């Protein structure tokens, strides 16, 4: 067990987008029956075989830290939340495809989390305005997940996909879109986490 390295991944997003359900699916391989409001932070662990089947196979624990709340929370909540953002290896940004605001709020979420990380590039906090340069130099890999894809009417799906493709490009992040209930269980390859 001592040889297993620690990997911490934050799961961020507005309340009600499906972070807890996602984390539960990833770690327990089951659908979450009764999702409730997350107070503070809830952690779950997934065992992952990196480079499975090859001689370099190594087993990692991936800690998924699901931080609850909204970007508009009081500053006391934000300062308390900041303790969870230290030494992060990756960030999963979750947004609801039926709610445009939740996608826009991802900028503020990522700024909140990355600012705490205090990378050597010296990220300065503006009031939530988007600055592409910050994300280009960002050493922390980002993964964007859109939920509730099946709740979008057929004719609007292409528009939504285009919008989110642009969004993930801005973030320099990978992107996955999920259905409600997550009946379609995809194998998540954490391609971005390279540990040599």
């Amino acid at each position, binding site marked *: 067990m001592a040889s297993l390295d620690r990997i911490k991944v934050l799961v961020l997003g507005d309340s*009600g987008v499906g972070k807890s359900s996602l984390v539960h699916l990833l770690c327990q391989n089951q659908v979450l029956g009764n999702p409730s409001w997350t*107070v503070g*932070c809830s952690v779950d662990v997934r065992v992952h075989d990196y480079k499975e089947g090859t001689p370099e196979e190594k087993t990692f*624990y991936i800690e998924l830290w699901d931080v609850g709340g909204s970007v508009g929370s009081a500053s*006391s909540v934000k300062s*308390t939340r900041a*303790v969870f953002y230290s030494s992060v290896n990756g960030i999963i940004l979750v947004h609801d495809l039926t709610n445009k*605001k939740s996608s826009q709020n991802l900028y503020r979420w990522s700024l909140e989390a990355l600012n705490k990380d205090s990378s050597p590039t010296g990220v300065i906090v503006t009031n939530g305005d988007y600055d592409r340069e910050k994300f280009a130099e960002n050493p922390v890999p980002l993964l964007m997940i859109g939920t509730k894809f099946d709740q979008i009417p057929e004719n609007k799906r292409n528009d939504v996909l285009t919008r989110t493709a642009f969004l993930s490009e801005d973030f320099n992040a990978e992107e996955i879109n999920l259905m409600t209930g997550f009946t379609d269980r995809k194998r998540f390859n954490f391609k971005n986490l390279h540990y040599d």
Partner: protein
Amino acid sequence: EECLSPTCSFCTPQVLFFGFGWLFFMRQLFKDYEVRHYIVQVVFSVTFAFSCTMFELIIFEILGALSSTSRYFHWKLNLYVILLVLIFVVPFYIGYFVVSNIRLLQRQKLLFACVVWFTFMYFFWKLGDPFPILSPKHGILSIEQLISRVGVIGVTLMALLSGFGAVNCPYTYMSYFLRNVTDSDILALERRLLQTMDMIVSKKKRIAMTRRQMYQRGEDQSKQTGIWGMIRSVTSPPPNSENLSLIQQEVDALEELSRQLFLETVDLQATKERIEYSKTFQGKYFNVLGYFFSIYCVWKIFMVKFWSQHISFILVGIIIVTSIRGLLITLTKFFYAISSSKSSNVIVLVLAQIMGMYFVSSVLLMRMSMPLEYRTIVTEVLGELQFNFYHRWFDVIFLVSALSSILFLYLAHKQAPEKHMTM
């Protein structure tokens, strides 16, 4: 021509009020949510605009601006519109959005919304029975019937809020100095929180690894056939499953602890921020304003006879501004605490309803503060309501609310020092 310019002078500020309500909605209340139903925004802004216009009319009354006939006309017009909004429009839309959230009733949304509205009207009408708010000479379909009921609800709300505010304000101001939160207190709590999270993580790792091993072994076991396989599975039951449930219980307890620690840390942070704010000039200024309303209530008891025009104008103006500001802040806090993306529409409409009723009753109560010569217009417009009843009702509810708040805060304060002693 005489009617044209006063109408313009009312329309311009009304448009401004509407714009302010619109901006408040967008920038404050709905800043984290997506506006999908613009009707909600319009209804909120309209309610706000017409409520503010009523206050404007009182100011005009005291100042003696414009002719009395045009003032009277605008009073009546404004009153009709706001009653229409508060009794028909807002309750109907509240019913409509509540019904939209319930899946079973999706098919016949309009029908069920009408049902909800009729239920509301029934109880609204019944409100007239226990209260002596009308004199018997009023007909069934008079405007006094509607205003009197709106007045009762609004006055109750005002008294509840004022009572709580009058007690809460000095309590919070004093208690922050008594509690004296330092940075090291917060750091200690944060450290405990992170340690708890780390413990949860390590236990969950054990559970995950154990499950994995069980799964692998289970796979191996299922491959074993024959007698030896059966004997094996009976004589050596997996010892890990009992361990697992024990560890899971420990994890549940730790998770509950982490939530408590999180909330305590938030509480300490908020206290520290409020202490810092109250030391600033801005903080002190707003504290003074907050005290003003309570002082005014006390002053009223002594029944100062001498009221000059200017004093009453300034007083009335300050009361209006303080109560609007106080109400908007309270509504915003309430909204953030309880809303989600599903219920936000309903909550905003409920807030608009409360706001409208609150402002209408402010006008009712304000009548007492105004000198005799200005009272006539209010009496003329609102009809012959039993104004004394409203004042007595306000005083009773104010007292009840203040006493309950004292009790509530006392009990809450008693629990707090015990929490921190276990740190």
